[in-house]
């Protein structure tokens, strides 16, 4: 899932300091699961803002609304009748949701309440580890299902480099060397021959905004005007 962490309070406070009526919109999917931007986190942030603004003699009227997914027109629709009353919106969705929300309400300033930090696995409650950088050309078949783009600090396709340190990455002892683990797993599976050949330079497919249309589907003739 996509994970995010709440932005530092002072940063959020500074962004919205000039607005008197602010709607805080949570997202009920990924960021709710990773405890960053769901209904509960919206309530906590609003309480903090409310208290800080009162102390600053600059009170603010706050609204709270959490939708199922901010990356989906269907769920944003329920905000249509609410947002008109507000000077600004804080979105606690991931970067995708924040932008999609802002696109729907182009007259209202939208501010991020979280920093999106990647696509991660849920190791335990509150503990998430990144596993994918969505490069668009998966090499996990060759690398024993360990991603060198994400897990190698240098993103090497022909690792391991000379900085491997007792199975750890040169950047930190508590960070596994991706290529050491790739070697280990391929050896265990008797598949080392799969990385014996040189891998040529990657043609990066993630350098422009990507649009995905699945087979059998197409873009509507005319994009929906809002």
């Amino acid at each position, binding site marked *: 899932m996509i994970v995010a962490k709440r932005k530092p309070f002072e940063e959020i406070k500074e962004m919205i300091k000039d607005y008197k009526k602010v709607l805080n919109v949570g997202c009920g999917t990924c960021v709710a699961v990773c405890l960053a931007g769901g209904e509960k986190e919206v309530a906590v942030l609003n309480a903090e803002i409310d208290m800080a603004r009162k102390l600053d003699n600059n009170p603010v009227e706050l609204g709270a609304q959490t939708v199922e997914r901010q990356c989906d027109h269907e769920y944003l629709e329920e905000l249509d009748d609410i947002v008109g009353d507000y000077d600004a919106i804080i979105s606690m969705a991931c970067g995708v949701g924040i932008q999609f929300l802002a696109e729907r309400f182009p007259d209202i300033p939208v501010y991020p309440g979280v920093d999106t930090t990647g696509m991660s696995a849920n190791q335990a409650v509150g503990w998430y580890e990144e596993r994918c950088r969505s490069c668009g050309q998966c090499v996990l078949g060759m690398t024993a299902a360990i991603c060198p783009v994400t897990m190698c*600090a240098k*993103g*090497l396709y022909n690792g391991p480099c000379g*900085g491997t*340190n*007792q199975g750890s990455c040169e*950047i930190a002892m508590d960070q596994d060397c991706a290529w*050491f683990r790739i070697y280990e797993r391929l050896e265990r599976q008797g598949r080392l021959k799969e990385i014996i050949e*040189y891998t040529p330079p990657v043609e990066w497919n993630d350098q422009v905004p990507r649009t995905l249309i699945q087979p059998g589907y197409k873009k509507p003739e005319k994009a929906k005007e809002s």
Partner: protein
Amino acid sequence: MKSGSNLEKVLKAGHFAFTGELGPPRGCDVEEVREKAQHLKGNVDSVNITDNQTAMVRMSSWAASLILLQEGLEPNFQMVCRDRNRLAMQADILGAYAHGIKNMLCLSGDHQMFGDHPLAKGVFDIDSIQLINMVKIMRDEGKFLSGADLHGTPKMFIGAASNPFADPFEWRVHRLAKKVNAGCDFIQTQCIYNMEKFREFIKQANDMGLTEKTYILAGVTPMKSVGMAKYMKSKVPGIEVPDEIIKRLQGAGKGKVADEGIKFACEQVEEFKEMKGVHGVHMMAIEWEHMVPEIAERAKVLPRPVVD
């Protein structure tokens, strides 16, 4: 001849090569480069010019390489994958060769978090093995990585690094093979202290026929102090310092540790001269360039051969 560089000529003629290293300044003090270069002149076949080593910003390696050329030394232009994408790399390779640089060393580069701009964006558009192959394509096929034709090809002598001491040991010789297959002409290894492990590594390389396809220069860095040895053992990833080296330095007595360090380095050079599959030594006297004349003398590698 692939490049006609002095280093290539020395190796091709069958001489035992001896290369040095020079770190460019943290500023634009040309005199600092000239001063260091004077200690190396005549004592080495080629001088590696490091490229923002340990991710600290320095005078660019091609620029410092040009100063070396002016001083009458042959540079070995190091290029790391951390700071440039394939466009900038190819442009710098062309520019460097246009100015007379004939050797290159292709490296991944230390991660940016070790340096003075730890949160810089690391590029790593291509990796060190892909870089080796890119230079080879430019040199031998006269083409850019894109496949487009070059007008004038950079005849570089292509070098790469090899670290026999990083994990997993069993894979290191295969990684060397990848570099050889990608097109490297010579290898300079990481600093060697564990001779036993290096002997095993070279044996594997000999058995796979790699030392017939590429020249191997064994990396040597003389220890200046016990502190340096301990630091390298515990803090530098991929460097292995056996305890007996530290004990030997400790036993040298006050004021004699550096001398003992040089003595050990010279013993290593003597062994490398006789070691099948080793074609020379890369002497990395880090911030100790002024000691290179003495080290070269004591290692009995002088005078350096002159090959036409």
